[in-house]
């Protein structure tokens, strides 16, 4: 199976780097296409980027060559130090064009240069994408793609109805399964019709079905007071299903 010339030998032994790059690229592409969560899509984008960087760096590898920094015998300043005793002219010291026999001693600097800038720009674009995700979460209360599309659709039909006031809602554990699973396009018309009371109703059902909160349901006011007095530790309370003033 792994004898010389077979496809497995060519792909998995001689060209393992390309195989790994293909696998990483596919993982990233899969995450970008098939995942529903925008953050997971971004993770996929980063994996994709890593695959490309690995590809570039691995084609820069050269057998028997060193990194693209001059060795002391080729270093313009290394030889300068050697000749300093009898060389006073600044222009005629050290540096000369490397002879052709020495060129194979160094790897190609270009892939490293290109990837150096690609990594930094990758960080910048990732930060930008994350900030857009944060804004989406702030406005719509979700980073799940299908819920987002549903909300956008609902907002569009509401705009057509006249009122264009946006009412973002936080995503809570209570309605997590429900919105993703059942309430698809079929319910949108019903929701737009009875739009006003929707949040309150949902909130009521939320507090009824809440099971993973504190052991006993407390009255609203005391719960709020509790939040203020109790020193909350590093974990943020914002993601908890808190009472919505709207």
């Amino acid at each position, binding site marked *: 199976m792994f004898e010389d010339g077979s496809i497995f030998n060519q792909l998995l032994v001689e*060209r393992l780097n390309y195989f790994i790059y*293909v696998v990483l690229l596919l993982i990233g592409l899969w995450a970008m296409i098939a995942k529903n969560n925008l953050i997971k899509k971004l993770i996929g984008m980063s994996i994709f980027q890593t695959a490309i960087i690995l590809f570039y760096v691995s084609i820069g590898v050269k057998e028997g060559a060193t990194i693209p*920094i*001059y060795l002391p015998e080729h270093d313009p300043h290394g030889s300068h130090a050697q000749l300093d005793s009898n060389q006073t002219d600044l222009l005629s010291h050290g540096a000369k064009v490397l002879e052709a026999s020495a060129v194979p001693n160094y790897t*190609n600097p270009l892939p490293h240069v290109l990837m150096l800038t690609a*990594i930094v*720009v990758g*960080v910048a674009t990732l930060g930008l994408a994350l900030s857009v995700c944060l804004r989406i979460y702030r406005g719509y209360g979700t980073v799940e793609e299908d819920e987002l599309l549903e909300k956008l659709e609902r907002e569009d039909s509401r705009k057509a109805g006249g009122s264009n006031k946006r009412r973002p809602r936080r995503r809570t554990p209570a309605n997590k399964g429900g919105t993703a699973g059942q309430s698809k396009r079929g319910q949108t018309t019903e929701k737009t019709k009875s739009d006003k009371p929707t949040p309150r109703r949902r909130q009521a059902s939320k507090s009824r079905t809440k099971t993973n909160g504190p052991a006993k349901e407390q009255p609203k006011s005391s719960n709020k007071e509790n939040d203020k007095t109790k*020193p*909350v530790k590093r974990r943020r309370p914002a993601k908890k299903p808190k009472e919505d003033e709207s």
Partner: protein
Amino acid sequence: MKKAAFILILCIGLLLAWAAKDFPSWGDPQSPASSSPVASHFIANTGVDTEVPNMVTAVLADYRGFDTMFETVVVFIAGLAVFSILRGGPKNRTRDREFVVDFEPDLIVTNTVRLIVPVIQIFALYVLAHGHVSPGGGFQGGVAMGASFILIALSWDLKTALARFPIERCFTVAALGIVIYAGIGLLSLFLGGEFLDYAHLAKIFPVSPEMARYHAMLGVEIGVGFTVTAIMFALYASLSTDGRMRDGL
């Protein structure tokens, strides 16, 4: 949908694997990338053109200087965009529900960071200043420097870090970095060369044209380092607080 995506990805994977069989094998010195005339030119002539031993820096800051300048501008614009995306727009709803972060900075962590941050910063400056003789450069040094400020923010809180490096100053420093880079380019333009043709700086500095390129590369790298340091910290500060620049992590 997922099935279609899976089939698509399977097809792409098979095509890529099939194409990979024609690629040069690992480390082949005869591969197109390793034997290209451009690569040989850079390897042979960097020393005589610029006197810089580190070819990567020479290609980055001199041969491809225009490209690197705009990479820096991209980083700057990304930082600015993150800041304004999170700051502006409709009312930030997280404002009404303040994140309550009430915790004591850990004694062991803060003291370790107190010891380690100066070392990180010195190392960052070393990486920056020796970028043209040894591995390193503006991007790497800048990231290390920015990481030291992020470390302060993580071990105390963001307020402590912002007291040392306010967000307004972040953008001033970032812009200053680009001004340094473009200024060196413009200076060589005014001295009769082309934009970013550092050799013409030898007309006003008492060095040979090659050494002028050597030193101009250091200046350019310092500009890059400024921008990257400031933008890394600005990205962290914006993203960790949802743009409010207080509390947060």
